[in-house]
């Protein structure tokens, strides 16, 4: 397992998304109200870049005609075919057993910690004064 600095925290404020290349893989990064998510930027269905998907909730119902949008901000809809994935796990809502987006541990850490630790700052200059977004591969 390796840990990578992918951007500074300033570059991924709440409500934004971006991508980063790590070890040849494109990773989609999301900050939803301060919750960070990192997922392989490739839908397991057709290969769409999921960084372009809609972040929303999950439609639930107790029966015909009953609609509730729950857990707003916890789901991603793929931009190509609308498949729904839970951001925190990458699991497909329709097919959780066999279909999932590869997801990665992601967190925010202080630059001060990073310059001491076993992190790989891939083409990324780290300074002590800033915070950074770190993912584990």
């Amino acid at each position, binding site marked *: 397992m390796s840990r990578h600095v992918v951007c500074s925290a300033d570059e991924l404020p709440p409500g934004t998304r971006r991508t980063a290349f790590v070890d040849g893989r494109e990773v989609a990064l999301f900050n939803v109200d301060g919750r960070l998510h990192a997922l392989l930027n490739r839908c397991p269905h057709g290969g769409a870049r999921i960084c372009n998907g809609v972040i929303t909730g999950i439609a639930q119902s107790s029966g015909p005609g009953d609609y509730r949008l729950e857990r707003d901000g916890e789901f991603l809809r793929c931009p190509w075919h609308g498949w729904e994935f839970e951001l925190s796990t990458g699991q497909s*809502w329709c097919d959780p057993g066999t279909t999932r987006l590869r997801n990665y541990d992601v967190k925010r850490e202080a630059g001060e910690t990073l310059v001491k630790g076993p992190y790989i700052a891939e083409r990324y200059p780290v300074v002590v004064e800033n915070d950074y977004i770190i993912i584990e591969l």
Partner: protein
Amino acid sequence: MKLPYAGAIDCDLHLPAPTIAQLLPHLDDFWRDQIINRAIDRMPFAMMSYPPNAPISQRADWRAAPAATALETVQTQALDAFGLSFAIANIIHGAVALHNDDMAAALCRAVNDWLRVEWLEREPRLRGSILIHPQDVSQAVAEVERLASDGRFVQVLMLAMGERPLGRREFFPIYAAAERHGLVIAVHAGSTYRYAPTIVGWPCYQFEDYVAQAQAFENQTVSLIAEGVFQRFPRLKFVFLESGVSWLPVTMWRTDKTWRGARPETPWVDRWPSEIIREHLRLTTQPFDAPDAAAVAATIARIGSDDMLLFSTDYPHWQFEADDVLPEGLSPATLRKTLIDNALATYPRLAQEAIGGAAAIEETIR
């Protein structure tokens, strides 16, 4: 192939539709007056999906050699010939295409009472379908309630093509009544011709009309799934009669595929449509649109279950020659389920009867 043993349950057998003269004793004074004095009794009330002289409507050898009475003819040509333990009788009658809701309901009541008196009371192997005019839901529900106490009626009969898709909520009271009384909803090929029987417009030929029926069943399957009928009525089963069967796997796959992306639109569809279909939908075996044993086996494999097939003769429709009433390619285990077990699992009222239970036939029909 031929039936390997006696005791099969025929889930789609047609009795000759009653003439209006035969229905008159089962109409009240008002409707008898209307029918006679408006000369409505001269109307054939034959559904144009099954023109009387079309080859599909009656096999030639059955047409040529009727026994003395209609009952004896059905006994000889179907019940005895195929060694049936039960046969569910479906009467496709033009009453369901009328625009006058009250006349349609009156004629449906008369057809059902005629079926009860002239057939069910004379032949213990026969079971009945409650014919309804679904465009008037309240009268349809009333007819289901009126006959529900008679355990010989095992299902409610509707056509594949009416005014609106069968999943629409306006029909839910009918489904609630059916579920409450342990009745199945049977959907038979046929149209009331409110709309063209093909989605691209009116065809010229009966040949086209008959082929198009399979597409109507596809549309109804998707409607029932999308509208959440089986979430609302989890104990309800639908039986598609004379649908052709082999359209199903493609529809299942396409519905599953589309559901994955379109799921939020109908959030009550809470699992794979194919799972819901396998649990709640049943199909009779005549006709089975597949050319040979390999194609039949492949169709069942792609459906992913052999619980869905119900044996039928579709008598007297000309679907097969001689006594080759079964599609080729059914394994012995699938055959047993198709001939008997699946019907008992589908029809609560047949199951009660088969275990000697409480399917008491009440004589209290008003």
